[in-house]
């Protein structure tokens, strides 16, 4: 997994709460294979980004020249609620988004971001709104995220501290792989399974 330490990138404000993963990537694209050559970026926010004829909707933030190269999104509460589809993270990542800042996240999506080396940043509602206001006032401005320091520096240089579980933080900073972390415990796992299934032989 790619590690995450610091990120300074153009940030795009999306003025909407409850952006479900169906919005992040409509279901019809989930059947697409994903490779290094064919990423999921064309599908990101597809139906908000393109009209029925596949033309860009000029109002949508990522279609505005200043925000096209965004690496951060600042959204409303409950970002990524709904379906568990990891395709939502693939679409964000393949577009170039490495961090989403929001007052809260759907649980599964939050875990999916972490699993892929993305950083979901939780900041209070008023601060997220303030960041979005700044970003709208200065299209194309960057935010700077420092995971070690747990801060987001806004466009005026002001630092907003955020909290993140220390375990997640460490994994992101080091780019640790979950499977590796499991398999180093194989003897303990096997002994657990032995005892567990001895009590419940019908499950083995």
């Amino acid at each position, binding site marked *: 997994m790619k590690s995450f330490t610091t990120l300074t990138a153009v940030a795009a404000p999306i*003025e*909407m*709460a*409850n952006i*479900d993963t*169906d*919005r992040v990537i*409509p*279901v*019809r694209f*989930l*059947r*697409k*294979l*994903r490779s290094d050559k064919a990423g999921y970026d064309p599908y990101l926010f597809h*139906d908000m980004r393109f009209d*029925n004829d596949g033309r860009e909707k000029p109002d949508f933030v990522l279609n505005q020249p200043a925000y096209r190269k965004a690496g951060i999104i600042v959204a*409303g*509460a*409950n970002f990524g*609620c*709904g*379906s*568990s*589809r*990891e*395709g939502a*993270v*693939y679409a964000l990542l393949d577009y170039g988004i490495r961090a989403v800042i929001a007052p*809260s996240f*759907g*649980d*599964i*999506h939050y*875990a*999916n971001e972490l*699993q*892929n080396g993305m950083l979901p940043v939780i900041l209070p509602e008023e601060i997220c709104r303030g960041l979005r206001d700044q970003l709208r006032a200065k299209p194309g401005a960057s935010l700077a995220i420092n995971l070690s320091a747990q801060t987001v520096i806004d466009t005026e240089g002001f630092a907003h501290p955020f909290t993140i*579980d*220390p*375990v997640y933080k460490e994994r992101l900073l080091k780019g640790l792989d*979950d*499977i590796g*972390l*499991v*398999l180093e*415990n194989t003897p*303990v*796992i096997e002994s*657990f*399974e032995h005892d*567990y299934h001895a*009590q*419940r*032989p*019908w*499950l*083995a």
Partner: protein
Amino acid sequence: MALTMFDKIWNSHVILEKPGGDALLHIDRNFVHEGSFHAFGALAKEGRKVRKPRQNFAVADHYVPTVGRERGVEAAEDADARNMIRLLEENCRVNDIAHYGIDDDRQGIVHVIGPELGLTQPGLTVTCGDSHTSTHGALGAYAFGTGASQLKQILATQCLWLKRPKTLRIVVNGQLAPGVTGKDVVLAIIAKIGTAGATGHVIEFAGSAISGLTVEGRLTVCNMAIEAGGRAGMIAPDDKVYEYLHGREFSPKGADWDRALAQWRTLPSDDGARFDREVTLDGAKLEPMLTWGTSPEEALPVSGRIPDPKSLGDANQRAHAEQALAYMDLKPGMALTDIQIDRAFIGSCTNGRIEDLRAAAAVLKGRKAVIQAWVSPGSTALKRQAEAEGLDKIFLDAGVEWRASGCSSCAAMNGDKVPPGMRSASTSNRNFEGRQGKGARTHLMSPAMTAAAIVTGRVTDVRTLAAGKH
């Protein structure tokens, strides 16, 4: 110390704990479906194999066609869908996983067949790369959906690193009025606490209105726990659950059954167990519910009127409601029963079980559909059972299509779409924009309410229909 049911299941599955509260959990059953190909792909790329094939089960449900099934995979919508169905079979072959393919007698929606085959049992940890895995919690399991990376981890290790979630008990007291079902209960809960109301929490549904539900009704309630933001939903197992499980293919047999039963009886939360939060509802006051907007929390009793977004206190809700009304083409103040319906779908892992089919058939019997509608039973076995009971004839006589089993119009991945602009009454669980097809307008409701819409062409309180007012 008094423990919750969740505590008991969690504690019995923790292999080890790390400082900081990360626990490595044993996973009893993991389910995969066509959409799991990313996880299998990543696994193969890393040169890994499934560690415990016998604890994994695969079923084709999301992309299977619901018509022309005698043609097998060839009947699928397009090459992509056919590939997905075949890829699952191939991944299972390579990894030695039991696979219930498109023409298998055990095929069905993953969250329907888990309980139906007795794979889901009280006290187990159950996972699947699908958010509605919460369904299985109705039998007293800790069941939750994962994304592809966590799924890969489970396939490779049969364990999962997890943070212990918080607990929320939702108590629904009283007795439900006739015509009020599990679907109405859960829609009322989500309308009350919101789609983020249970974020970070495992929900235990309790109270007399919940224990009074059948196992089918409980599965419906837990199915939509995720729509309230819950990490999982669960209900204490009782004799109804044990009767339901007895004799099923994967249920324990003989002496194992007695041993299992003794373990299961210890699962319900102890008196005085502490939950991080509690919410209470009066079940006796509930009415049949339906959604009017594009979020499951935008739901009201059928006697209600479309709210004026301006009257909503919360700015986010206001903005969402405005957009929802524009998408749904509805006006504030309108009576819900004045909404015209163009299409209907009965099925899905929410309401595709035998009791749901019976409830819809009871309304349709002797009446005629005035709109296009179809039924897709939750599993192939259920389809047979319904046919043995003569339900298929009732649907067909009413002019409702009787289809094969799959996810069908719930997410329309197999091509069973609702056309743009059409308004659909659906027994499924999500009314997001575009969920049933681009531009489709979805109203979620119970099977009986959907059947009432089928015979009247508009939103109808099924109780007035039963009283012969139509």
